[in-house]
């Protein structure tokens, strides 16, 4: 018990009697003075060429110039033309009427809400659409001529379909003329002479 107490006392006495290195006051005052001197110099004065290596200045200049160019390039890239007040149209493949006729299952209509327009009027296309091979256009409505053709093709009336074929139309006209001549037994020239 006494031995432990004795060891504790000797250790605490060692802490109690610890002496700093000679001249601690001088060192502390010098360190504080140096710190105050540095703190009193303005920040920009500390960045003078004498205090900075030359390559550091050049490196900083090069970085600054690079940053300016990158900023300008990004600005040009993202800027919207002044006359581009309407949303840009997407390049679509032209669909022929025949394609539209034979197309049994129309492509699913794309939701307008899937494209988000940013404040710079640039379309933000979702990633799946960007990965697609192309942008198939939605089926266009048929024109009046296309609708007429569709009706003729479905009705299969010989007279109507002959309209589309000039040779067949001429043959049918000659046949009708022959039937007329046979029915009345005279030709048109003789009838005109009788009338005169």
């Amino acid at each position, binding site marked *: 018990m006494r031995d432990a107490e004795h060891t504790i006392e000797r250790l605490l006495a060692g*802490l109690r009697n*610890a002496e700093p290195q000679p001249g601690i006051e001088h060192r502390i005052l010098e360190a504080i003075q140096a710190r105050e001197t540095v703190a009193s110099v303005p920040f920009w004065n500390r960045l003078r060429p004498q205090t900075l290596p030359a390559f550091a200045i050049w490196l900083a200049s090069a970085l600054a110039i690079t940053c300016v160019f990158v900023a300008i390039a990004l600005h040009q890239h993202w800027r919207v033309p002044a006359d581009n007040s309407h949303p840009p149209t997407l390049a679509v493949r032209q669909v022929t009427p025949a394609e539209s006729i034979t197309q049994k299952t129309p492509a699913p209509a794309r939701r307008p809400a899937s494209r988000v327009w940013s404040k710079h009027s640039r379309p933000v296309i979702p990633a799946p659409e960007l990965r697609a091979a192309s942008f198939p256009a939605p089926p266009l409505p048929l024109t009046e001529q296309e609708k007429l053709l569709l009706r003729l093709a479905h009705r299969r009336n010989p007279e109507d379909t002959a309209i589309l074929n000039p040779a067949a139309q001429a043959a049918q006209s000659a046949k009708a003329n022959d039937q007329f001549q046979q029915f009345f037994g005279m030709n048109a020239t003789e009838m005109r002479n009788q009338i005169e």
Partner: protein
Amino acid sequence: MALSLMEDAPPALDLAAIVDAYSTLLFRIANSVLRSRTEAEDVVQDVFIRLLEHRRSLSAVRDMRVWLIRIAWNLALDRKRRKRPEQLDETFAQSLASATMPADTAMEEAQRYQSVLREIERLPRAERHVLLLSALEELGTTEIAAVLGRSESAVRALLSRARARLRERLEKEKA
């Protein structure tokens, strides 16, 4: 030593005189925690830098001595959290033993000091702090209580418990 930097400081603050008066005490306080002369001197320097930073508000400080001791104490504790105390304790124990003992017994004594320091570190924090501060004869119970923010009776009780617990653990270790 007159400092030119004192020109823009309040006239009541004579830094050179304050450094002369308190540097040794603050060194011992920091050294009791860190057990390293170099680290303790750095702490003392930091204390006076804090003093300069707060020189405009020093009029609100009631007791400059306690205020400085508390700063040194807290800075030392903060610094110790970032260090490995085992290495510092080993060096301190060896230097203390070699300064007081002949070379043939110094190593054995250094090991005993190391075990005491290890047990001190294992004490509850409040007891450890009171024990270390009470080791410095410059500090009375009143000042220790002011530094630690406790009552004087609490400081006395903590000190008594710390010594008893330390003694008991050392005896158990020896047995």
